[in-house]
């Protein structure tokens, strides 16, 4: 479904990704783990069109999407739920969700998705009219995921959904991510620093170190890998 081959990305003169190759099959949950500054966010930003690679290619469902602007990539069916959530603080919960369906012109579909998101995250339904900025961190994360789902994506990119959120809420959010994958059939590429959680949820994983993929395997193998255990699960 998604393939990256030999992707290099630069910020000005600084190179952040070195020949990254990665594949995600339809229906999978794949995770990408790595330390601070490894280049995880950079990789997601490259897929969603916020950055364009200086070498290599990105293909989605067979077509090249590298070089497309972000607002074009969304229309192909990729939703990027960004690091730090970035919800619209002054719009209400409902308005935030409706913004997520900006590219969808059919009211009935928007309504159906809204109900689905409220079904996944009942807390959002309760807070429908509240400004997004007044939600707790965990609720904001739910809103960010819900907003990304409103576009009806086939591939969902999640950037550290556990960041700065209480452990109990993190459990809840991860359970919902699993449900999104199982019930809606949405393919998921999950970036996490919390390797315990990520390797528990995903089927396959990649380990990124200083801009390079250093390991790639099924998660149950990664969990047993001595290097991974020491560096990320220790």
């Amino acid at each position, binding site marked *: 479904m998604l393939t990256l081959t030999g992707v290099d990305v630069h910020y000005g003169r600084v190179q952040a990704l070195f020949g990254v190759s990665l594949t995600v099959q339809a229906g999978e949950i794949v995770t990408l783990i790595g330390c601070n500054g490894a280049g995880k966010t950079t990789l997601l930003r490259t897929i969603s069109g916020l950055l364009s690679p200086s070498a290599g290619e990105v293909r989605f469902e067979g077509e090249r999407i590298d070089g497309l602007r972000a*607002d074009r990539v969304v229309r192909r069916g990729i939703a990027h739920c960004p690091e730090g959530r*970035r919800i*619209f603080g002054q719009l209400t919960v409902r308005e935030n969700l409706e913004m997520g369906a900006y590219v969808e012109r059919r009211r009935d579909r928007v309504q159906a998705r809204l109900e689905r998101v409220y079904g996944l995250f009942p807390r959002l339904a309760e807070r429908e009219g509240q400004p997004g900025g007044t939600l707790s961190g965990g609720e904001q994360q739910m809103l960010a995921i819900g907003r990304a789902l409103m576009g009806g994506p086939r591939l969902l990119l999640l950037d550290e959904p556990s960041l700065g959120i209480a452990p109990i809420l993190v459990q809840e959010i991860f359970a919902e991510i699993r449900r999104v994958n199982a019930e809606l059939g949405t393919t998921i590429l999950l970036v996490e620093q919390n390797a315990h959680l990520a390797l528990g949820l995903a089927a396959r994983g990649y380990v990124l170190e200083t801009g390079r993929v250093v390991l790639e395997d099924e998660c149950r193998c990664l969990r047993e890998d001595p290097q991974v255990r020491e560096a990320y699960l220790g």
Partner: protein
Amino acid sequence: MGGGAPLLAIALGPEGYWWANLLVLVSVYSLLGLSLNLINGYGRMFSLGHHGFWALGAYGAGWLTVALAGTLPGPLVFVLSCLFAMGVAAAGGLVIGLPCLRLRGDYLAIATLGFGEIVRIAIQNSPRELLGGAEGLTVPRVLMEVGPETRAAYRLLFVGLGLVLVVLVAAAIRNYVRSARGRAMLATAQDEVAAGLLGIDPTRSKVAAFLMGSTLAGLAGAVYAHYQGNITPLEFGFMEMVKIFLIVVLGGLGSISGCVLAAFVLLFVEQWLGRLPDSVGWVKEWWQVEYALVLVLLMIFRPRGLLGPRELTDVWRAWRGRRAAAPGRGGGAP
């Protein structure tokens, strides 16, 4: 209307005459405030060139009216000149907006500031046959003859016209902000990257808001030019920008009713001071300084405006709610 006009003047009296003038100016500045609000309030861009778009509109309308007066029916010339004014201001908005809006924040402020000054200086140095140069441009009266007896009627006509335009523009802005595109603009203003990730083209969104704002400033210019009958470049100086911005900030960035109220208060004070005798002329000068001072203080302490994005009805409801929630004065604790 002819026979009734002198009667109107008498009925209006000098006080009524003063109020009519005030109301016309309030509607012109409300249009300016509302349109700047689209850019600086809802759009959260920082334009300092609104007086430039206003001048473009005024001079655009004036120029076309001079060219067409007498050849076409008056009301038609009026309408055409308004449309032309909007077109000229929009073209100005496109020229300055397109290159800057791709860049971030401060460039726009600097470029628009320069733009406003360039417009004024260009008009000042224009050939007299074209735009009247420094001496000003006389705009032929196309809506009705204006003589000593009909001046009051002319003012009243513009009171009505101004009111209608303010209501129409306010309603249009309100609808826009609630539409999908309007929401997209608000979202872009809050977080460009997040908006882009949802499929919104941030540049397009910003350019749209900027263009709408400059176009409407052009409309305000057309009304102003027809009302005054004579316009000079000095009337469109940077001080006017400060005034318009102050109206937007006082009214609350992103509040429609607040903006109109602020325009009223500001112009009322200004016009009232204008009636003071010359012996206390320092008050007027001091007031001009005050504008800038109040603006700076507001930007520091209430950067989202005095009332923020709330409408007056929201404030009223909140106030009533608080009063209802507060314990009655007479009764002790239960």
